């Protein structure tokens, strides 16, 4: 039975291999406490994984670090992923296309597309002091 409360979790992640799994573990525990099934948060786990990897890899910060915040009720999950890098222009990122990737040397570049597609609401704010991504998933 889902609980009638809200919970939040804030984590700061340094750039070390597979550190995104720490955030996923936190999300799992929040969901379990709230009585929300695995399948409801599965897509959110992929979206936040991509957001963290992108932030740590592309932020351009001297010492990459990402702050992740989960805010969860029984009805929705909001995820904030923030880096403190140089920022980027989101509209300059071309949507990847599998037809073009086949036969091309560059097979990567799926993160933003996945985040946008898996979110019920997606926002990105980017500037010279970093990038903040907001991913909302409905849990009902």
């Amino acid at each position, binding site marked *: 039975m889902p609980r009638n409360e809200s919970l939040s979790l804030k984590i700061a992640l340094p750039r070390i291999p*597979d550190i*995104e*799994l*720490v955030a*996923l*573990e936190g999300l799992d525990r929040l969901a379990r406490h709230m009585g929300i099934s695995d*399948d409801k948060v*599965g*897509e959110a*786990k*992929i979206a936040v*994984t*991509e957001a963290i*990897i992108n932030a740590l890899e592309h932020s351009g910060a001297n010492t990459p670090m990402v702050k992740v915040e989960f805010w969860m009720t029984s009805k929705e999950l909001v995820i904030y992923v923030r880096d403190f890098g140089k920022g980027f222009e989101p509209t300059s990122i071309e949507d*990847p*296309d*599998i*037809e073009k*990737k*086949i*036969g091309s040397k560059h*097979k*990567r570049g*799926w*993160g933003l*597309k*996945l985040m946008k*597609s*898996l979110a019920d609401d997606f926002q990105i704010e980017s500037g010279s002091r970093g990038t903040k991504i907001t991913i909302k998933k409905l849990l009902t």
Partner: protein
Amino acid sequence: MDQPFSLTSELRDNRLVIATSGYVNNVGGEAIATEFSKHFSGGVKEVVVNLEHSRVVNSIGMSFLIEMIEQLQDVDGRVIFTNLDPAVDKMLSIMGIFKFAGKAANVDEAFGQFDARS
């Protein structure tokens, strides 16, 4: 926490079945691609990737599998993904992977798809 990546592989009727366990990240994706390459050079053209025990994957790991799909296309081969977690299934759909690869509920069903194709 998801366990470290590992894989097993077996050849059945000259078809390669790779079963993974744990997080398919860059290391996991590369390990799958390396295992595939060993058998591809020996003439294997039909591959099953069983992701039953990999509930967490990332797009970097999956990018290695696009390379595998590409190589199989060149020899009229095929890869079928099986036992997909619903979120992983959706991820691969968003990436368009199923335009060039198959999916099946399990390994036996994948073999049935290969049989129907030959």
